């Protein structure tokens, strides 16, 4: 009897991860079972640090990096999270500590600044207050690595780790500087109201543009990231890591 109840509980948990309102999927979303974008953001995202020189692109060792933004696109199994007149979906990358930017490497006409910020955290929030500022109207970035509160209010829906977060800024000849950011494969933490949906998701990496040109970045900010978090949604391979003790608990 206990085993039957335990199995039923597992099946119900797995079923609930995929039982949600059907919505029109954004055309940029990958097909089921194919790796691609899971979350995308565009203009409304900025980064700031506790010790960074915008003119030289040098981040000091120990500088705390924060990224705040608003999602533009969500893909299955999160495609019902539609930014609209009712809700906004904000995200925060934090707990990122700079290893310091070494002097640039020069290859041909290109100067290259690399910086690694180690392992950080990502959090995604659903907020009906619709109060997170857009790109036009960013406040002065707070000091000390504090988070702009309007990006972390509302309901925490997902959280996880961002491993090996790094940026690369390049400047070629007389072209304006440009850049990119990238992480290793991220992972979900068992936190957030939608954690159960991650049972059908195989995470991948986060990456995107890292704009540092004058006029791209408001004063007191260090960069404008425009990017995405990739993953593969496959409802046929629902799985979740667990411990032997947790599994035993299901059948007691």
């Amino acid at each position: 009897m206990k085993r039957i109840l335990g199995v039923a509980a597992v099946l119900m948990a797995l079923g609930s991860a995929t039982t949600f309102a059907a919505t029109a999927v954004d055309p940029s979303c990958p097909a089921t079972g194919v790796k691609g974008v899971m979350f995308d953001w565009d203009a409304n995202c900025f980064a700031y640090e506790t010790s960074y020189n915008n003119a030289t692109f040098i981040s000091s060792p120990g500088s705390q990096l924060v990224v705040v933004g608003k999602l533009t696109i969500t893909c299955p199994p999160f495609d019902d999270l539609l930014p609209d007149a009712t809700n906004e979906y904000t995200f925060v990358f934090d707990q990122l500590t700079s290893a310091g930017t070494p002097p640039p490497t020069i290859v041909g006409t290109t100067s290259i600044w690399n910086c690694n910020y180690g392992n950080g955290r990502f959090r995604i929030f659903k907020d009906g207050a619709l109060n997170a500022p857009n790109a036009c109207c960013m406040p002065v970035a707070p000091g000390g690595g504090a988070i702009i509160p309007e990006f972390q209010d509302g309901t925490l829906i997902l959280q996880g780790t961002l491993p090996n977060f790094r940026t690369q800024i390049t400047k070629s000849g007389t072209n304006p500087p440009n850049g990119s950011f990238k992480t290793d494969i991220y992972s979900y933490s068992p936190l957030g109201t939608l954690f159960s949906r991650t049972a059908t998701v195989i995470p991948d990496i986060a990456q995107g543009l890292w704009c540092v040109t004058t006029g791209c970045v408001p004063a007191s900010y260090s960069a404008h990231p425009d990017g995405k978090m990739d993953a593969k949604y496959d409802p046929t391979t629902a799985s979740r890591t667990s411990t032997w003790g947790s599994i035993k608990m299901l059948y007691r």
Partner: protein
Amino acid sequence: MKRKAFLLLFTAIFAFAVPAFAQNHVLFAFQGFDYQDPNTNPNPDPATGYLDLGEGYKTVGFVTSVGSELDPYTDFTLNEYTFHAFNLTVAARFYAGGFLEVDFNNGGRARYFQDPKSGGTHATYGVNPPNATSPSTFIDGTLQIGGSINSFILTYDFNLNQGNTSGSMNLDEGIQLVYVPVHNGWTLAGLAGRPNGTVPTGYDNQLSGECRIPDATPTTHRTWGAVKALYR
């Protein structure tokens, strides 16, 4: 006295432009993939083959958002918006120590299109482009915005598998062109990321980028007291 007060008020309104934060303005953002066409040297080795001299560079993808001037004329619920860059030919390249810099000829083009979801053709990447659906399903529909691309550069660090693209863009075509007050001076830039399981066979990098222009430092409204405080 009244005249003096009026003149001071008039001056405050029109002369004391209080600086606010400079802001980046995005016209449209996109994500997609790039590929070589023509790919006269199919050797993928960045030292000798990838984006060899004279080879073509193209991108296809989806527009993920638009700026405020295009937003009233854009409906992502009813339509699919696709992106295409082409006419970019490798003019010069430099490779050393795992780092590649590729300079392209001037006169490239970038466009984005509107295709209705009902009755239109869903854009499909397929494999090994150009193919039966790429770029054809990314360039059907109605041309919204297009322009020339100059000074386009791709840099890629094969040690870190991380790179970017950037060029200047002048807008000159499309039915939405009339809604954009400034046509010249835009920047088309993006991430170039590989290798990654999301990149379909035959494509090289996944792209995530935007067409943007740095705004002039805008003004904000302030009270006379706030203005005076600035100059004390």
